[in-house]
Each structure stands twice: as structure tokens, then as C-alpha cells.
């Protein structure tokens, strides 16, 4: 009888400990996933800034063409941005098809191996030699 009670108590303890472990592991997973979601949003913010502001083509009249990117601006691009109080580094490249795929870049330092990184590729128009070509803007971002 005592042995049965000991076994029941033991089983209850194991269940309580398992529950606590599951809760802690779920919390840790939630935190790491929230950090990844934050990184994903930061990458989106970087892409928006690049396509509507920093890489956007400016014509001779000084008019800014959002979503039309000027590859000449890639050389002077600052590849660190402050988003939500956090610094993010990123690597950027552009690609387009003209008798085969052409890739411009990558620009910026290589991603660090020990950091979580997020990559995002969006469509954009690329201004080259007086023409607007369909292209892709790819960004890989990580927390600095």
C-alpha cells in the first residue's frame, strides 16, 4: 500500500515537473520566435526605406521615383540602420533579366554565422540606361 502511494506521488511529481518544463520551453520558443518576427519586420522596414527613399531613382528635375531603383546609389549605401532602437546590418543585391540573369552586388558586409538573419526579396523597377526594367531587390538583415 505504501509502495503504491509512493508510486502515485512520484507520477504526480513527474507530471508537475514535466508541465513546468513544457511551460518554460514554450516561453523560450515564444521569445525566440518573437525575436525572429521582429527581425522579419525590421527587414521589411529596411526594404521599404531602400525602395522609397535611399535607392529610389531621382530624375534630372529632382523628382523622386519611389519603387524605381537606381543601381548607381548602391556604391554609397549605408548598410546599417537603426530601427526601433536597435541597429541592424544588412547586405543588399539587385538582380534583373536581360538575356540571362544579371546580379548587382552583394553590397555590405557578409552576414555573421552566429546571428539569426532574415532574407527578403521583393520586385522592383530598376533604372538603367534610360530604361525601367523589372528586377528583384534582395536584402539579408541581422541584428548588429
Amino acid at each position, binding site marked *: 500500500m505504501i509502495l503504491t502511494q509512493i508510486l502515485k506521488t512520484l507520477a504526480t511529481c513527474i507530471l508537475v515537473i514535466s508541465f513546468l518544463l513544457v511551460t518554460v520551453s514554450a516561453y523560450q*520558443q*515564444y521569445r525566440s520566435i518573437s525575436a*525572429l518576427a521582429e527581425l*522579419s519586420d525590421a527587414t521589411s522596414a529596411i526594404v521599404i526605406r531602400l525602395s522609397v527613399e535611399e535607392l529610389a531613382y531621382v530624375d534630372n528635375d529632382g523628382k523622386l521615383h519611389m519603387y524605381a531603383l537606381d543601381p548607381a546609389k548602391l556604391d554609397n549605401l549605408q548598410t546599417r540602420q537603426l530601427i526601433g532602437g536597435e541597429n541592424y546590418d544588412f547586405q543588399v543585391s539587385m538582380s534583373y533579366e536581360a538575356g540571362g540573369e544579371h546580379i548587382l552586388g552583394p553590397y555590405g558586409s557578409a552576414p555573421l554565422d552566429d546571428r539569426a538573419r532574415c532574407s527578403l526579396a521583393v520586385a522592383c*523597377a530598376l533604372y538603367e540606361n534610360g*530604361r525601367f526594367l523589372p528586377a528583384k531587390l534582395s536584402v539579408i538583415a541581422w541584428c548588429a
Partner: protein
Amino acid sequence: MVRLDDRGVADILAIAFMFVMLVLAAVFMHTYSLRPLRAATDRQLELKSEHLYMTLELAWVEPYSVSFLHAAAENLLLKQPTVPELHLRSAMENVLEYLCPPGYAVTVSLSYDDSSWEPSWPEGVGLGMDAKKQFVREGEVRLTMTGGEKIAVLVTVRIFKIAGV
């Protein structure tokens, strides 16, 4: 017949119930914790849909100096558009194939009155109106006709998950 007020059986039932609760709680907590990542992925796809629309509005159909959406609107309304239909169809197919996010399908729908043009990639994937997850960007292309009349063609760019991928 086992009596539930039997102390031994009641204890075992309590432990079994706790075990079931443990499994359910684990499944629930781990499923719930993935929600922020799914939401972030959806926001990225919204962004891709917006960029795809703007790209089609700005990028030219080579070798013409007319944007994809403008050329498509002309094809819908004019008898003699700047870009011939066959050339536009092929160019649109190529550009959608190049810009379509992997694992997703994309459709571009232009409509005016009863006429419409709906290229998509991959071919024959449909319009994706019933897709569970779809990321839509709507807008319009305005054309000025020879009589000075301005016509707005409705444009919808839709990115959606291909079933089974």
C-alpha cells in the same frame, strides 16, 4: 463495475487527467508561440504584393517605353495598342515567372466594363479568389482616349498560396 469513489481508481484517473492536460497544454503553447512568425510572414507577403504592383506599373515592356499595366490597359481598350497582344502576353508571363515568390502563385487582373484580361503564373492556376491566404493590391490605370475621355481600368494583383505546396 469499478466504483469511482474507490480511492485507488480515483487517484489513477486524476493522474491520467493531468497527463492529458499536460499533452494538450504543450500542443497549445507550442502552436500559439508560432503565431507571431506567421503574422510576420504574412506582412512580408503584403509587402511583396505592393512591390509587384508598383513594379508592373513602372517597369517597361521591352523594347517599348510603356509600362506593363499601361500596355495591358491599352490592349483592353484600344484596337491598335502600343504593344501587340502576343508580345505583351509573352513578356507578362516572363515577368510574372521571374518575380513570383517561390511556393506562391500570382495573378494580375485588369477589367473595364465587361472586358477583362487575367494573366497568371503558374499557368492555369486560376484567379485564387477562394485561396485561404491571399495578398491583394488593387489600383487603377487611367488612359486618356483620343476624344479626351479619361477611362480608369481596375487592376488587381493577387499573390496566393498554391494548394498542396
